[in-house]
């Protein structure tokens, strides 16, 4: 597997492991781009902690910083890394055991039809 994919997914999972960063990402997903001040007004997290988490999220490529109004930096969610992580979750969520058990049960039930 591409090591790059693993690295990207790991950063997503590290980001999501922290409840403050989860709520920051959730706020950006739900409400669109926002400044640290906007986010501090909406979330029960200190302005200082928000700035620290946003820097970490920007370094990991999960949010991008862009110029906003009144020379404030706005943060925007980047969905591409989430899509890489989603694919790993898809592998864990795929169930083949259930369908294969059902296939065996179906064929055993129909044993006398052979």
């Amino acid at each position, binding site marked *: 597997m591409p090591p790059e994919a693993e690295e990207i997914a790991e950063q997503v999972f590290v980001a999501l492991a922290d409840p403050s960063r989860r709520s920051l990402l959730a706020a950006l997903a739900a409400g669109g781009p926002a400044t640290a001040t906007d986010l501090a007004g909406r979330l029960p997290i200190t302005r200082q902690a928000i700035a620290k988490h946003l820097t970490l999220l920007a370094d990991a490529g999960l949010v991008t910083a862009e110029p906003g109004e009144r020379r404030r930096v706005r943060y925007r969610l980047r969905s591409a890394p989430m899509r890489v992580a*989603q*694919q790993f979750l898809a592998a864990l969520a795929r169930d083949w055991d259930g*369908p294969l058990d059902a296939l065996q049960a179906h064929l055993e039930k129909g044993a006398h039809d052979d």
Partner: protein
Amino acid sequence: MAFPDRIERVVEIAHPPVTVWTALTTADGLSSWFGEEVTIDLRPGGTARMSWSSGDVADMRIERVEEPTVFGYTWHVYGLPEDDPRRTYVEFTLEPVAAGTRLTVVESGFSQLPDDAHDKAFGGNVQGWASELGELVAYLDAA
């Protein structure tokens, strides 16, 4: 390797490959154990669809049909957005054994990265929306 690119299962079934083949490749067969409603056009390049009363739908594109030993198809990755172009490849291999059939299923492609073209398209979409919303705002401001 922390994350699997491929999932593999092997099961032994007390029936000859021809019986297992029918269960894997016909609408009647598939609807008995996998999908609830099934349609299938069994040829390379053909499509198949399985649906469930839950509202879930699986659209498959058939890649390999080598009766009664290999059946392969691609499908959308469950849990990814509808517009995501990535697909995994599923291949069933049937091998006759004394007890009946050894059936191997391999699903691969989970660790593929979204390709560059897709990244660009997706980035393009985001910018497209931002600029369209910007145009709407400019239009309303002017009115």
